């Protein structure tokens, strides 16, 4: 039965509209970005510069840059050391709920996917938080599936308040909110907001987000801006690489972050670089063209374009990859990860969002960081 689908560019009721031109600017640049137009000399030119222009960034993401990965890596090491020294931040995610109202064809939490759903009670949250805090971690990322109905703003706020008892830094990765809701969660103690656009190609976006509030492209796009208006300290950007043309999506992600940094110079900017992994009930989800080489190219381009931005390396990647990119491009790594609901101390109350590739504990990751001549950092902030 054919269902009438909504226009993804039209806001749904209750969604805040802010005055901003960043979406138009990003889409215009991405439309004009043809990565086949760059030559090796454009890449060499970009590598010789101290500050990269948007064009230089485009060159580093192009196929012409493939033979220059080693040179990009050398430059990236210097830039990363310049801005972050030897430090590598450690954190872990805590999924407090996995209910979802969206039908996103690539995701394990997809509302049409028959998985075990659940959410942690406040008491259960506290047990999990305490267990995580015992590992020495000071930064936590609180995640939910995207369901306002099952995991309301107040519920998340209670979780954040509890988290601030045990952690000095609290990030959230939840469904997009209005700026007053972000302000409320900021008051509860949240510092950072991550929202991933998945793809910046609005046509592809529409095809993979069949229903739910996530289908509204501009509302998702402006999440980081509303979060900063709400007083958050920093925001993270990311495309799900491999969902669409990863070079264009990476280019758009960089520009999104770049224009936001220009408009909100006080904000801390972060990138995540998830690529598609197999997930439950869809083991043959088509492998895409983002191999490790391409993934590294994207990470290197982010680093060289915005050398001051934090970059997180996901547990979707194998240990051997993660260990080599920290210090070179990545500044933040998760450890002791569970991507089911809870699962740090008690049995999981819901199934996982994806399969992780690096199950190492906090002490194991800590030791690995030291072995690589880097310094594990648990807390980079003080609460005042």
């Amino acid at each position, binding site marked *: 039965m054919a269902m009438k689908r909504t226009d993804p560019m039209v806001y749904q009721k209750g969604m805040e509209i802010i005055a901003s031109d960043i979406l138009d600017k990003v889409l215009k640049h991405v439309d004009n970005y043809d990565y086949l137009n760059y030559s090796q000399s454009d890449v*060499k*030119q970009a590598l*010789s510069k101290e*500050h990269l222009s948007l064009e230089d960034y485009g060159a580093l993401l192009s196929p012409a840059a493939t033979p220059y*990965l*080693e040179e990009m*890596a*050398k430059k990236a*090491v210097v830039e990363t050391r310049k801005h972050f020294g030897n430090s590598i931040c450690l954190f872990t995610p805590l999924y407090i709920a996995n209910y979802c109202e969206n039908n996103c064809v690539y995701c394990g939490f997809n509302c049409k996917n028959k998985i075990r759903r659940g959410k942690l009670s406040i008491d259960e949250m506290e047990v999990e938080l305490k267990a995580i805090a015992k590992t020495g971690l000071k930064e936590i990322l609180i995640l939910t599936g995207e369901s306002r109905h099952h995991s309301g703003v107040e519920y998340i706020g209670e979780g954040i308040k509890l988290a601030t008892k045990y952690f000095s830094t609290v990030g959230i990765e939840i469904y997009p909110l209005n700026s007053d809701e972000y302000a409320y969660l900021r008051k509860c103690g949240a510092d950072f907001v991550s929202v991933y656009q998945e793809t910046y190609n609005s046509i592809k976006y529409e095809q993979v987000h069949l229903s739910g509030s996530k289908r509204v492209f501009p509302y998702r796009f402006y999440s980081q801006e509303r979060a900063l208006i709400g007083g958050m300290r920093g925001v993270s950007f990311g495309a799900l690489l491999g969902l669409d043309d990863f070079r264009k999506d990476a280019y758009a992600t960089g520009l999104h972050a770049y224009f936001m940094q*220009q408009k909100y*110079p006080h904000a801390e900017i972060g990138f995540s670089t998830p690529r598609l992994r197999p997930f439950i009930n869809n083991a043959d989800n088509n492998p895409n063209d983002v*191999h*490790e*080489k391409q993934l*590294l190219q994207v990470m290197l381009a982010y680093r060289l374009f915005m050398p001051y931005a934090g970059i997180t390396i996901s547990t979707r990647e*194998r240990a*051997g*990859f993660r260990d*080599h990119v920290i210090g*070179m491009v990545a500044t933040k790594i998760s450890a002791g990860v569970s991507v089911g609901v809870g699962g740090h101390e008690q049995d999981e109350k819901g199934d996982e969002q994806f399969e992780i590739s690096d199950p190492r504990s906090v002490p194991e990751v800590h030791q690995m960081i030291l072995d690589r001549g880097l310094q594990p950092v648990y807390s980079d902030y003080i609460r005042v």
Partner: protein
Amino acid sequence: MTDQLVIGGQRFNSRFILGSGKFSLEIVQAVVENGGAEIVTLALRRANQGGEENILEYIPENITLLPNTSGARTAEEAVKIARLAREINCGNFVKVEVIKDSKYLFPDNYETVKATEILAKDGFVVMPYMYPDLNVARDLVSAGAAAVMPLASPIGSNKGLSTKDFIQILVDEIAVPIIVDAGIGRPSQACEAMEMGVAAVMCNTAVATAKNIPLMAKAFGQAIESGRNAYLAGLGRVLNQAAEASSPLTGFLED
């Protein structure tokens, strides 16, 4: 598409802004024409009784006049000077400068932001002279500045781009034209500033203190044009001859 400088909606082909101080009125026209300048700065001073030489008569017709607020020590004084200048009916451009340091003649950024805000609201095209500071430049843009004019070195010092790295940051981050003002001593320095991507260079003392003033104006005009072309052409690669690490960093990649 021609490469033009746009300030307050007005278009200019030349990126040389000429200061008219410190040389005699008879050569003003020759200096302006030799340098190809389209914007000339002026100052406001007390008039004397009994008719005196009027600088406006020496400046060619099509030139945009840019009165400055020299002499102002506070935002309030700068605003008053700008409004007096506007009464003379020579347009609504104003270069805000607020200086209360008589030794280095450094602009007071705080008062400059205040004056800029008031004058921009009052309909002026405001071009504030400032000490290159990114936060202040952002505040100036928020206050309505049509351009931002960071100093290269102290006024009249002819020392060149002492603040180069900070000006580069303004060029990279600020959306309105960045115009280097004060301290440029030689055409090569003006050229270097233009290569960095600044939108224009303003200069007075370096021209006024040359032996052959019109010829020096010509040299500056050419240097500024040359630097602009170099910027538009995209500077070539400078080879980095530093030692390189011996073991590869990307050997770990799989699949």
